[in-house]
């Protein structure tokens, strides 16, 4: 009996104990998630089927009125579509602004790369509120950006308290997330492969379309998923840059919960955002399978 164990690899000797360790290691995060995420979401889901009484009251019920009302109201349909479109726009703008930076960082090496990476991450160390106020100062009616445009002889457009402002502000705020996701997804991009394309007669432009872009698609998909989710759920920048004039899902949830005190409707809208997340995730995994396939 005792000699048999000598032939077994380390760790394979007691399979039950390794499984036990795995459970023990996963337990804390599972517990935190259960209490901090699953439970509240469950509450929210339940709330969305309650009945809202005028004046902020809630009646325990099990009615789909919130949902049907929401989906029949053209204001909300437009709000939802608008939120999705604006978030997609922000995601796309973030991608365009971040891709060259990520590609450059991917190719850089040594201390220079470390320095630049720190530079990219550093905005995350300041709060979005501070950065948003920075943008407000820059984009204000008589601000530096407007002055430069005016100096060039153009009529400066309104860049504050409208969708333009929201897109500009959120794009900048989301860029570090996009850059980091892109870099994480650039693993398959071996410089040798680009060189191979060049020696086979591909111009830099065609090398980009045929080799670099396809190989960076996983990174693009990851970055877009993350930024879309962050954009559609962002609130502070939307509130400040929109100046109360841009109505999207996040502001509407806030208004319903805090101003109108219609919690069941706020819960329904929140669940709707969650459903949009799920859809985005489904699209993402679908795209990923297409890329890898």
């Amino acid at each position, binding site marked *: 009996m005792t000699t048999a164990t000598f032939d077994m690899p380390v760790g394979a000797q007691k399979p039950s104990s390794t499984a036990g360790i795995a459970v023990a290691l996963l337990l804390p995060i599972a517990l935190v998630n259960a209490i901090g995420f699953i439970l509240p979401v469950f509450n929210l889901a339940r709330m969305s089927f309650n009945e809202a009484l005028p004046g902020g009251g809630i009646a325990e019920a099990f009615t789909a009125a919130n949902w049907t009302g929401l989906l029949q109201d053209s204001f909300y349909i437009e709000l939802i579509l608008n939120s999705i479109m604006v978030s997609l726009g922000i995601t796309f703008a973030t991608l365009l602004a971040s891709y060259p930076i990520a590609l450059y960082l991917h190719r850089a090496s040594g201390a220079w790369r470390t320095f630049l990476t720190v530079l990219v991450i550093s905005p995350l160390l300041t709060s979005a509120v501070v950065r948003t106020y920075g943008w407000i100062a820059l984009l204000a009616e008589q601000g530096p950006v407007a002055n430069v445009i005016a100096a060039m002889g153009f009529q400066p457009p309104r860049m504050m308290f409208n969708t333009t402002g929201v897109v500009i502000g959120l794009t900048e705020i989301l860029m570090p997330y996009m850059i980091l996701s892109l870099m994480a997804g650039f693993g*398959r991009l*071996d410089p*040798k*492969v680009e*060189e*191979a*394309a*060049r*020696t*086979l*007669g*591909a*111009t*830099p432009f*065609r090398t980009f379309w*045929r*080799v670099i872009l*396809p*190989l960076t698609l996983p990174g693009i998909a990851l970055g877009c998923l993350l930024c879309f989710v962050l954009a559609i759920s962002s609130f502070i920048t939307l509130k400040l840059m929109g100046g109360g004039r841009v109505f999207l899902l996040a502001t509407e949830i806030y208004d319903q919960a805090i101003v109108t005190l219609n919690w069941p409707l706020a819960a329904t809208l929140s669940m709707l955002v969650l459903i949009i997340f799920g859809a985005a995730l489904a699209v993402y995994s679908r795209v990923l399978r297409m*890329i890898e396939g």
Partner: protein
Amino acid sequence: MMHQTIKRDGVETIGNPHLSLEGINKKYGLVEVISNLNLEVRKGELIALLGPSGCGKTTTLRMIAGLIAPSAGKIAVGGRDVTHIAPHGRDMGLVFQSYALFPHMTVAKNVAFGLEMRGLSRADIANKVAKALAMVQLGHLAERKPRELSGGQQQRVALARALVIEPSILLLDEPLSNLDAKLRDEMRTQIRDIQQELGITTVFVTHDQVEALSMCDRIVVMKGGLIEQVGTPHEIYERPTTPFVASFVGRTNRVKGKRTGDGCIRIGSSMIRSARPAVQDDVMVMVRPHRIHVDWSAASTERQGETQNRMAAVLSRITFVGDVIQYHFDVGGTEFIVEESTKKSQASRRQGDEAVLSWSVEDTLVFGADQ
């Protein structure tokens, strides 16, 4: 086909080279990895870059392909200076040491890539790709992705991808290193045939001397970023100009000796002659193991012929390697290895047996001891 070679400033030049490297220098920071490299390759020639790991073979190839720029010097193809031309404008095929296949494309797409860049019609592309894949015996794997192939299969895809474009210059960076012996032999023949048929000027990087000797027109032996010798396989093997070349290409016995007044070389108590005179007082003598004849019955060692060198030796060890047998002899404190084809009579040899080793003066290579 004979070509005249002319010596100019110690650099061998050939008339009208297809590829020429002039005074190429490459520095990484302060480190010079290629120093003053001069090389000319004829149209249709297959030339080997042979040298130990880290001697600068890949670096040289990458400079020819245009992937890195030389720090100094000029690269010309067919008389045209291409030093500052981008890689895609050079019409060269490169097989990378690490294959560098496109991971997101199938084998067929990988091979088709270069043809697509050249704007060939779909039908032409399909045709050529099928031929190229058949040549490397991978027709049945055309729809696989590179990650679903073995290392050797990937290497053959890389080879097909570079060959299919029929480039004006083919650059191969150890293209057969991952193949088994049989496949490697087949691929050598294939590469050689295609190269000759299409007359593609080819630079073949290898650290396998057999490969260099057996399939190349000329060999460039490199060491530490410098060219040691350029010559035909025969020249490199029979008339190495440096001790490094002599010991890197083929095996060799080496023993220290002293020049004597009459043009002989003294090794211990024996006197030998060499084909070329010794250039220094302290010399290094080299003899290839299979060029030495063993005379087990000879009594006298004193009789030195005009054309034969002779030395008394004691057998210290026998290594049986199948086709050949290696005798390790002790010659006055130095080990000499002699190789013979195996035959039955060898079975009776024992450690301590005495013999006389003899070899032709022609086969005696002599170098300065500090060379």
